[in-house]
């Protein structure tokens, strides 16, 4: 997606400065998903496919109210379903809208080696630029939410853009627009956090969900999609939502200490070899009466 109106504050695989860093006064945008009022109607899934003009994708029925097992390169938004048996034996249907979380500290962007293939706009949206993507799949490794999906034909990765083309025109994302119950909200991060906290308090005080709370994981700097959960102490129940997502430690080690140690060793090695040549020069062997190699008749 080309975003003339959006400035960039983080660029993947980029040597040098970032043009939009701290140049613009913008609010961070955020989706709020209230899982307690989601009815699993899948309108948001359809709206996503429709708005983004993606080819229709075969669904998979696995005896649940879930369209397919996982998101796909052309299916960015999926309601994950879990029939949870509570302590008293009663059943609870948990529905969670699963899509890119638009992390403040995106693991995909951190892992990406291609200049400009992943950007984060000043409004917080993390966006893949397929024309710069090289298809290496490092973003798949960097993501703690299992979001980026590779198209095996184009060899590029795709995911939710947070409807960047809509929000840059002042519209809300297609999924938000389509939600019939109002469980989806869109606005600034501050407003959404306030709304989410109000709703969680209401669930605790008035509906008996003692552990109700807001999911905005600090391990990735907070996310551009936040959830209200009936039980915020067990996010895993909601389609495997990680309780403390982080950029994988392996990616952190690879991109920071290993990179600096490796660069230091490489440059040091080259300088050292050159210095060795200056100090000691080539080895000399007595040729005696023997003509040198290559001087044969």
């Amino acid at each position, binding site marked *: 997606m080309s975003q003339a109106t959006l400035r960039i504050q983080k660029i993947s*695989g*980029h*040597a040098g400065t970032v043009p939009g860093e701290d140049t613009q006064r913008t609010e961070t945008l955020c989706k709020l998903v209230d899982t307690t009022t989601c009815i699993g109607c899948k309108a948001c899934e359809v709206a996503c496919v429709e708005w983004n003009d993606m080819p229709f994708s075969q669904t998979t029925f696995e005896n649940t109210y879930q369209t397919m097992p*996982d998101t796909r390169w052309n299916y960015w938004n999926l309601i994950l379903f879990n029939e949870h048996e509570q302590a008293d034996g009663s059943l609870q249907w948990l529905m969670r809208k699963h899509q890119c979380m638009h992390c403040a500290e995106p693991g995909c962007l951190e*892992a990406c*080696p*291609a*200049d400009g293939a992943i950007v984060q706009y000043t409004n917080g949206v993390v966006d893949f630029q397929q024309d*710069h*993507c*090289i*298809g*290496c*799949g*490092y973003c*798949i*490794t960097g993501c703690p939410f*299992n979001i980026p*999906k*590779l198209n*095996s034909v184009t*060899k590029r990765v795709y995911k939710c853009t947070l409807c960047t083309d809509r929000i840059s025109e002042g519209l809300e994302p297609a999924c938000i627009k389509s939600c019939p119950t109002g469980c989806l909200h869109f606005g600034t991060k501050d407003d959404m956090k306030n709304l989410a906290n109000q709703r969680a308090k209401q669930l605790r005080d008035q509906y008996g969900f003692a552990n109700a709370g807001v999911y905005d994981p600090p391990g990735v700097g907070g996310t551009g999609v936040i959830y209200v959960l009936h039980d915020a102490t067990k996010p895993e129940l909601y389609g495997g939502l990680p309780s403390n997502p982080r950029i*994988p*430690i*392996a*990616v952190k*080690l*690879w991109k920071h200490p*290993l*990179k600096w140690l*490796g*660069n230091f*060793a*490489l440059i040091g*090695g*080259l300088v050292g*070899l050159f210095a*060795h*040549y200056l100090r*000691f*020069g*080539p*080895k*000399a*062997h*007595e*040729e*005696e*009466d*023997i*003509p*040198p*190699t*290559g001087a*044969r*008749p």
Partner: protein
Amino acid sequence: MTDHPERLAPHHHVLRYTFAERLNHWIAAGSYLYLLATGLAFWSPWLFWMAVVLGGGQISRQLHPWVGLLFAGSVFYMYALWAGQMGFDAVDREWWSNLRYYITNQDDKMPPAGRYNAGQKMLFWSFFYGAIVLLLTGLVLWFTDYLPWSLRWLRYLAVLLHPIAALVTIGNFFIHVYMGVFAERGAFGSVIRGDVSLAFAKRYHPGWYQEIVGSSDDRK
């Protein structure tokens, strides 16, 4: 007498590398240079231009694994050719403990190395084991999108081990090129035309020299 392919060549030269050894060496070298350039491009944004020069990031990502297979195959052929000659013996251990004399060009103080000295043997094994690690982790990175989420630890392992193994081979590669092109005159020619002078053999591989001289009457 020996199981080595060398035979005396005219004008006080001796064949050090057969055509098969030389050809395989350059297949390994050529593929390694490509892997080095594209791999370093993916390693650091400051070096990404190398992938651009070589046809773009997408092409580099597409070809890197295939060239990697070629390189691994070439290294495994080296194993078939040379592994039998790469075992460390007492002379090698002594050679290694006198490395400082080798580094400071006091080669007359070195114990008599055979066809390969301890440094070359170390290079060989670092490339052999390096190629195995690079191949296995490279397969994970090549087909990373086919791995299920439950096996994501393989990806984490691969993104760490692939560059570590690469860095180890790069360090050895730098030293190898330096020794072969700049430090030991005659070494580069040996992997082009195959032969070295007897003076070269006597100076750097006295044990090997003795084997050749002792096993042949027809020199000069």
